[in-house]
């Protein structure tokens, strides 16, 4: 199992480095989001300083010193989502190009085929998010740019929780979209489903908009969205605020539950897809 797993991992890595524009996009996209979107979009600026509305927005940011800082952490979740969206396309193309039958004709355990792809794709979805976090922190020192301002007292445990939240988020989104690659046979269906899920996942989370500003029904949905849970873990640790209903550990447990469910679903669907008919 281990050898087959490593083989799939190696194949994914080889294919990835063979397409430089693919690699480059992982570097460029987080910067574009932060520079073009993040610098222009500041909810607090919509209201004059000191006005009730502005105060309301600031209060809703739950300890984030400014909107960019709030937004940059949300971008980490969003970058993870967008980087994992195409995880299933490799499986889809393998099926169409005849590579899939060759792999299924080998005795490699089916779980190794899924786990190898999941591991590499989750890794490639997670590191651009860390990159985005790094860029946002670096912007703080660049004149003329808004940057991510965090408390200096972030503990090692807090950093560990941030990393764990991000990794769990990458694993669950990758498992979800890999499953679509196994289950679907047409590119149109795959891209249709990913388009259908992409924005709803983002807009039913608190990645961009403070949860407190949402209508009650949306607040309920947002509370269970894993992207919200991940950003809660990060914001609680980075801004050292107590305005959240639960401590980060509770949100981490929620993320773990999501990851277990979606990985189990992926294993089941991939096994069903790879089973002889």
């Amino acid at each position, binding site marked *: 199992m281990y*050898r087959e797993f490593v083989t799939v991992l190696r194949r994914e890595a080889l294919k990835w480095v063979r397409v430089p524009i693919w690699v480059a996009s992982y570097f460029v996209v987080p910067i574009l989001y932060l520079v073009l979107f993040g610098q222009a979009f500041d909810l607090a600026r919509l209201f004059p300083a000191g006005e009730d509305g502005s105060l309301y927005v600031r209060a809703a940011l739950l300890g984030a010193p400014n909107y960019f800082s709030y937004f940059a952490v949300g971008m980490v979740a969003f970058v993870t989502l967008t980087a994992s969206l195409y995880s299933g396309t490799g499986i889809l193309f393998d099926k169409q190009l005849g590579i899939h039958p060759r792999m299924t004709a080998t*005795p490699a355990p089916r779980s190794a085929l899924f786990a190898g792809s999941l591991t590499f794709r989750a890794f490639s979805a997670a590191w651009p998010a860390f990159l985005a976090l790094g860029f946002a922190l670096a912007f703080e020192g660049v004149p003329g740019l808004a940057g991510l301002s965090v408390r200096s007292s972030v503990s090692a445990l807090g950093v560990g929780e941030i990393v764990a939240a991000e990794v769990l988020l990458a694993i669950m989104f990758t498992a979800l979209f890999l499953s679509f690659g196994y289950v679907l046979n047409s590119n149109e269906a795959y891209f249709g489903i990913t388009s259908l899920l992409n924005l709803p996942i983002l807009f039913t989370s608190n990645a961009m908009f403070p949860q407190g500003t949402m209508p009650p029904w949306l607040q309920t949905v947002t509370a269970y969205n894993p992207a919200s849970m991940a950003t809660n873990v990060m914001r609680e640790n980075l801004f050292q605020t107590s305005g959240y209903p639960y401590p980060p550990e509770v949100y981490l447990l929620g993320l773990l539950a999501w990851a277990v469910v979606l990985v189990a679903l992926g294993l089941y669907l991939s096994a069903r897809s790879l089973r002889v008919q």
Partner: protein
Amino acid sequence: MGAAVTCENLGKTFPGGVEAVTSVSLDVAHGEIYGFLGPNGAGKTTMISMLTTLLRPTHGTAEVEGIDVVREPERVRRRIGLVFQRSTSDDALTGRENLEIIAGLHGISPRAARPRIRELLERLDLVEAADRRVGAYSGGMRRRLEIAAGIVHAPSLLFLDEPTLGLDPQGRAGFWQYIRELRSENGMTIFLTTHYLDEADQLSDRVSIIDHGRVLRTDSPVALKESLGSDIVLVQPSDPSRDLASLLGAIPGVASVEPRSPEGAYRVRVARSESFVPAVVRACDAAGVELAGVSTRKPSLDEVFLTLTGREYREESEANHHAAPGASSPGGR
């Protein structure tokens, strides 16, 4: 020691009621080259997919190296190699990397795989191209890489599904030379499907002729041809309206005179074409019949197919090919 492949009443019906393989029973001996012949759409790919565990039979049983293909597919996969109809290699990777990946998926360590891959690349004349991406390979190079991928784990039984499809005559000859060597040097059992009857005739120890999902006959190519019991002479009168049936039937040595071909030629089965041809020329001359041509044919597998099905093999194959271009893909019947 049992047979390399045995199956009893094996069949496959796809959802929607398409019966690709009706009921096939066969045995393939160890070290044998076994040809599974039939026109496109006859059920050859479905048959090979069931034997290689890629498709589950609807009914019947099949064992490969004594292992049930439904109950223990993983064990079967460890023992067999498969060369698909079309390329299954990854264009983004080099030929060597593709082989390393397949070896890894068979659980072979990189250290053990390295010399085996080197040997295969040398043997299949791919050393120079080994570190180039497969996307830049020619059709012949891709086919050779497919063989290497099929045998990188040194299986005892190799399935070849239409392996020379799309190759030029030189490429086909080279391909079959290597297959012969594999058998003679390693004693590998080879199960091949093809719709090229000539190459099956030259290569196979035994062949099964399949049509519409059923095996019509199984025997050695020589025995199948001898079963026809005669040579075939095509007699073409200059005047297509002239009836020569009784004249030809009266010539000594004639076994039968078959209905005219669409071109108007009589198809005459005779014991020895060498003595019949002068006799037919003399008889026609004496009767004042002008001949446009006389040609002889030794029995071939095409003739066997015609006798068994009542249809011309090549016409059937061509018609199916045009009617169902997808049939030659891995998912084809």
